[in-house]
């Protein structure tokens, strides 16, 4: 690892101020991607501004169906929050299967969506849940936030403070893990918001990063059953391809995982 300066932000305003004051600073949350990258000498920020000590930024609030999750809530906290598990078990279940116990106890929801790794789990949920991303500067819908692989609408000194959404009527996440890394090679989050409003978020598979397959949403909005997806086509040309999964294989997995998510959501 190259030398770096570590700072601890007191509050949101302090975080922004500290970042603007350094040469090539980066915000640090759980560090589950950033720190290994730095250890391999592939990233060399001059300064790290740690957000995890900002008071109450890891709070999870559930009021009726309205859910707000602070950005520094760890995956373990999301997975084990009793009220959240009751209103939105699909998200708690997703969190419970990210990485391993070490990762779940350090990694955060804000860090995950701000990094927008094409194989990360949370971004698919944000799209399917119609979440609002709350930053230190503004609020925006998840569609606006995720702008492509490893890319978001966040400005240089902007960071995620929280995410909020209305819990769906029913939902589920089905993930096919990469056999080596166990990241999603195709992860599909299906959320039925009722009144013919079904949203689907797909991660791990597409060259463009996380996306909503509109034809699947349409088909499931009509009839929420796996058979509805038979006629949907996943375009191989849009899919990622690597030594573990060709684009054809990934296209197949997206459909299979979507069906499994629907079966699980229909319970």
């Amino acid at each position, binding site marked *: 690892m190259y030398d770096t300066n570590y700072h601890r932000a007191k509050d949101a305003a302090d975080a922004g101020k500290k970042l603007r004051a350094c040469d090539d600073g980066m915000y640090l949350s759980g560090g589950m991607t950033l720190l290994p990258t730095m250890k*391999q*000498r592939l990233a060399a920020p001059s300064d790290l501004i740690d957000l995890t000590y900002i008071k109450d930024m890891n709070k999870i609030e559930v009021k009726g169906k309205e859910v707000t999750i602070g950005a520094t809530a760890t995956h373990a906290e999301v997975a084990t929050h009793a009220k959240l598990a009751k209103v939105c078990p699909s998200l708690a279940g997703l969190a419970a299967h990210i990485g391993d116990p070490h990762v779940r106890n350090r990694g955060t929801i804000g860090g995950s969506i701000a990094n927008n790794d094409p194989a990360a789990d949370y971004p698919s949920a944000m799209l399917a849940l119609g979440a609002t991303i709350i930053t230190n500067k503004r609020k925006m819908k998840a569609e606006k936030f995720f702008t492509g692989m490893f890319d978001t609408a966040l400005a240089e000194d902007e960071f995620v403070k929280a995410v909020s959404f209305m819990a769906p009527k029913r939902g589920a996440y089905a993930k*096919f893990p990469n*056999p*080596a*890394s166990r990241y999603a090679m195709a992860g599909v989050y299906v959320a039925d918001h009722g009144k013919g409003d079904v949203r689907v978020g797909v991660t791990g598979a597409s060259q463009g990063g996380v996306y909503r397959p509109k034809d699947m949403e349409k088909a499931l909005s009509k009839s929420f059953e796996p058979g509805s997806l038979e006629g949907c086509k996943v375009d191989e040309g849009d899919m990622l391809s*690597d*030594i*573990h*999964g*060709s684009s054809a*294989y990934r296209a*197949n*997995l997206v459909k*299979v995982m979507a069906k499994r998510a629907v079966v699980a959501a229909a319970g």
Partner: protein
Amino acid sequence: MGIEGIGARVLRKEDKRFITGAGRYTDDHKIAGMHFAAFVRSPHAYAKIKKINIKEASKMSGVAGIFNGKELTGDGIGNIICGWMVHSKDGSPMNMGAWSALATEYVRYVGDAVAVVIAESLEEAQAAAEAVEVDYKVLKAVVTAEQAMGLKAPQLHPEAKNNVIFDWEIGEEDATDAAFAKAANVVELDIRNNRLVPNPMEPRSALVQYDAAEDHFTLHTTSQNPHVARLVLSAFYQVAPENKLRVIAPDVGGGFGAKIYIYPEEIVCLWAAKRAGVAAVKWTADRSESFLTDAHGRDHFSKAKMAFDKNNKITGFKIETLANLGAYMSLFSSSVPTYLYATLLSGQYNIPNIHCNVKTVYTNTVPVDAYRGAGRPEATYLVERMMTTAARQLGVDPAELRRNNFIQEFPHQTPVIMAYDAGDFGASLDAAMAEIKYSDFEKRRKKSAKNGMLRGIGMSCYIEACGIAPSAAVGSLGAGVGLWESAEVRVNPVGTVEVLTGSHSHGQGHETTFAQLVTERFGLPKDNVQIVHGDTDKVQFGMGTYGSRSGAVGMSAIEKALDKVEAKAKKIAAHMLEAAEGDIEIKDGEVMVKGTDKKLGWHEVCLGAYTGHNLPEGMEPGLKEGAFYDPTNFTFPAGCYICEVEVDPNTGVTTIEKFVAADDFGKIINPMIVEGQVHGGLAQGIGQAMMENAVYDDDGQLLSASYMDYTMPRADNLPNFHVSTTETLCPGNPLGIKGCGEAGAIGSPPAVINAITDAIGHNNLTMPASPQNVWAAINDGGMAEAAE
């Protein structure tokens, strides 16, 4: 056997320190004034070194020296050797290219070391290594064996025309061709044995201490054979004469073959410590360096055909194999695809005619050498995939085709050198079939089909050769060393015992099993026995641990030394007790006169040996004996593995529903440790069959260079194993031991692939049977790579 003797499930003595974090590995050692080495490595698979600029790097803080290959060869450090001479079928010696520990003119694989930085701290060494500027002329690389032999392929070494190292054969070609001409049926099979990265848990490490006043080196290193390392470092690399070089292999966290060899880093650290004038230099590979520089395993492509008569008896077997040896010839690389491979191509079967041709080639990849099984997994995969393929083509049950061709009488001379000494192949097959409930399989298949799943069953009846090997025999085949083992048994005056062995334990549990021999012999508690290994200053010589040889060879040497100790102790006791030597019995820690109540404590006899007050006339005091044991033959562990799988046709995900292993390892000293060896071997074999794969792109970049892309088997990939043993004793060594360290990795891959191909209904599937590859096999009739 007693509670701690031969055959007892004694818990491992060494585990207390391992599981409490008290193990002492090379990297745990620290020396005052210790510096660190960082290597400048080639980012290119093939390139000419134009210039190395160290101007900026040498000014950086903490840097004690930066050295390159020309300086290394200029100081007389010898090129890296291959310790086994193989001749081509035309009689010419193998075409070996030069390998300098630091590249001088060309780099030939990504990771090839170009220069070394010695600095006060690891961070300073790494920073300076990054600042070394190497100007390369990048050349076109070649990564597969097939391409390397092509007409327009880049030429890697001037010595090896068309990159061919040797073109070797075994067996009678004319007789084999004649058998095919008369065959009732011929079965053909093309087969690839995938390339693997060894991945011991502890990365390689070297710590050199240089004593300038004495001009003496001490090397702590991750070695499976420290004495061989010292011999080679002295005799061939001219680092220091043997009496000025002590090599210590302390606790070593797994080897699997990758730590047999003497690598560039050890040589360079020894040389550079003295040249830089520092007291000590440490280098420990990070995981990326392990992927890029540890010798890889396997990487064969073979075309095979088998001839059968009308009664489905095998009459001939013919094989053409192409083996990729990487950029340079590693220490035993030439023996793996020849004498460790083709000599096992008879399998468990009576095959009158076998001919095998092996071509080995250079490519711009990491050197390939022995990895758990070393040649025998490649042979077993070929033979056992062939037997199942043949059974399907001939329309007979795979078990019955095998049984119909089993060797029944021993000794049995195969047409490919090996003379099998003992075995009962039918017993293993019967045991495995009973355990997996073979006859009920079709019911289970139907049940799976109801759930939309494809179920399959596959078997493998393997035989392998361990206990390498009679020194004169391997010498005649080209080995540069003898493969005996040594032992010394030192009985202390209080009756406790130290056993010094030339074997090296890096996970095998020798500290326990070797102690059990002493326990068995004298009835002493195992905690009164200390096993000493891995230090050239303590153990006089030894050949180390690989090839499942430490039971059959290492323990035989200990047995011989124990015979001598027992004989002397009896003489002393007979004298002290005024009895006939033949009437003395040693049992439960007591030395007694048979049929009387006259006896002495074991410690009294030992003390008597050292006081020398009352010894037989002319006897030397002391109780310490040594022995060298040279094996009389290879040993032949064999067994039957049966695997049952369920495949999800939607995703290609394959689950092992049951895995049964029935092995014949001869005499077993500690069944718990043997089971552990089988479990670990199966995990590695199943890893090869379903997960692991070293993949290079066309430019020679290793794509699977971390655990993000290289699929190591994990606990949840594996079933609970059903292991059992049958026993025929090995007639060739005093204990009847055959060896168990590699069988799991040797026998399991074909069982898995035979099961999956049974499930999917066709043979077009290549290892690793990853979800993607299985899915492609189901949907397209095979992936591109499988359709060679």
